[in-house]
């Protein structure tokens, strides 16, 4: 038989606390390194597959559909369509946030509404909670709001958010 406990009962039993020391320095690799350098210059770069023509943003060195190396760097627009957006009232540690954080995925141009897969990014969207709740933001055209050049450091954070054009 198993024994579920209440929060306060945890103190009555022995617990072993252990804080994992797990630190990593992820290798960005060829494709993402160039992508990050591009962000520093205010460009969103993708890789194009020579076989099927699909553009990968964030870039990959290979096309997963054709299993063929992508061959060409292309710059996509920093503009696109909001595919989905949500308003988060909790932080990553599940603490309550007063102001919701609004994030979503953006289908970047050039691409068409018929594409099942498309160049896209997951990022913050600058709009109100009401825009999300009423779904007004969905399908809107948005453009990246870049950080000032001197503050960019080659990270996804070089884009502050996407805002409605």
């Amino acid at each position, binding site marked *: 038989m198993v024994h579920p406990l209440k929060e306060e009962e945890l103190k009555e039993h022995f617990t072993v606390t252990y804080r994992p020391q797990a630190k990593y320095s992820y290798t960005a690799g060829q494709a993402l390194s160039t992508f990050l350098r591009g962000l520093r210059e205010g460009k969103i770069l993708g890789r194009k597959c020579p076989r099927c023509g699909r553009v990968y943003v964030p870039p990959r060195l290979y096309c997963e559909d054709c299993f063929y190396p992508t061959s060409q760097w292309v710059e996509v627009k920093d503009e696109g369509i909001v*595919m989905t957006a949500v308003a988060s009232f909790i932080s990553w540690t599940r603490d309550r946030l007063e102001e919701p954080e609004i994030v979503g995925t953006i289908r970047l141009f050039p691409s068409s509404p018929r594409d099942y897969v498309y160049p896209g990014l997951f990022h913050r969207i600058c709009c109100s909670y009401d825009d999300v709740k009423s779904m007004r933001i969905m399908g809107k055209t948005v453009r990246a709001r870049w950080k000032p050049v001197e503050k960019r450091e080659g990270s996804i954070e070089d884009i502050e958010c996407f805002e409605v054009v």
Partner: protein
Amino acid sequence: MKTNLKFRRVAAIGAGMTPFRRRMLETPQELAWEASRKALDEAGLELRDIDCVVIGSAPDAFDGVHMKGEYLAHGAGGVMKPASRVYVGGATGVMTAISGWYHVASGMCKKVLAVAEEKMSPGRPHPQAVFRYIWDPITEKPLNPNLIWIFAMEMHRYMFVNKISKEEIALVSVKNKRNAANNPYAQLGGEITVDDVLRSEVLVWPVQLLDVSPVSDGAAAMVFVDGDIARRYTDTPIWVEGVGWTLDNTSWPNRELAYPRYLENAARMAYRMAGIERPQREIDVVEPYDPFDYKELHHLEGLMLARKGEAPLLLKEGFFDRDGDIPSSPSGGLLGVGNPIAAAGLMKVISIYWQLKGTAGKMQVKRPVHTGVAQAWGDLMQASTVIVMRN
């Protein structure tokens, strides 16, 4: 993919699980032992009869143990036996059963114990924190995401494309928590209303507290044996007739989220193996993965039990109720029973096993059942596993 296979027949002859609760006193090994012992008891076997052990467990970070398969081998009966761990994120639970199936179907083992365990509650500051590390470390993690974002984004897209309201989706929560009231293992069974769901705390709009399954600890286990010897142990073996699994690409921001194409792929693989041509006519009971209420609808569409965007309509008509045409989540699902990730997936298989065997007690659906389907889902909205069983 091969079709028309001459498989060795594989039967499930025993199943056991612990109740799903938050903050268990037992260690993960002890939870695994409890479930394994119950499964062996039901099958009428002892550990020495078991040839191989398959372990299923999702992120190592929950239990806070690296190489969790090795650690769990102890409680799961894997000592001095071939023991291995399979892993497809949230879809691991059903994959554990699938792996048990191919251990037997390949002729490698005659009797297999498949054990799934998860202990989510020890994580600090909150189990949610673990999910920060499931994202791409370079392009996504800097934004400090949490798991519920993923679901909320998919849910909102699903609602937007198919014009579905929050009220329609909340009906899933109501149904599953009601079903769970009949399940002795359930953490959160009870009667709630659509209004309760809509008034609960907003976590990440459109996801609210009662749209979500809880943090749980628990374990589940099943025994699979070669079809030739199954009737030595039971008069009512439950046959595994179809399995399927598929992983979509990693780059979820680059694809349409309104429809789970990977699930359709996995379902087609399993249906073809089981000879199912018209899923809606031939399937009698289904356990789709429902960590969030909209996911059940999403998955019913992916399993081709409802047309795209029409699952809410059928749900409203009572099609998926316990006394409906295709009862869905008669156990109460993850929303009602609890969600110790891998164990919850195997619980879904066990629920179908009980239904087909006729031992589901108060959970037993009204109509006679002969074909059941269990399904799980995981990773970055990309993995699905499907199993078809018959009695």
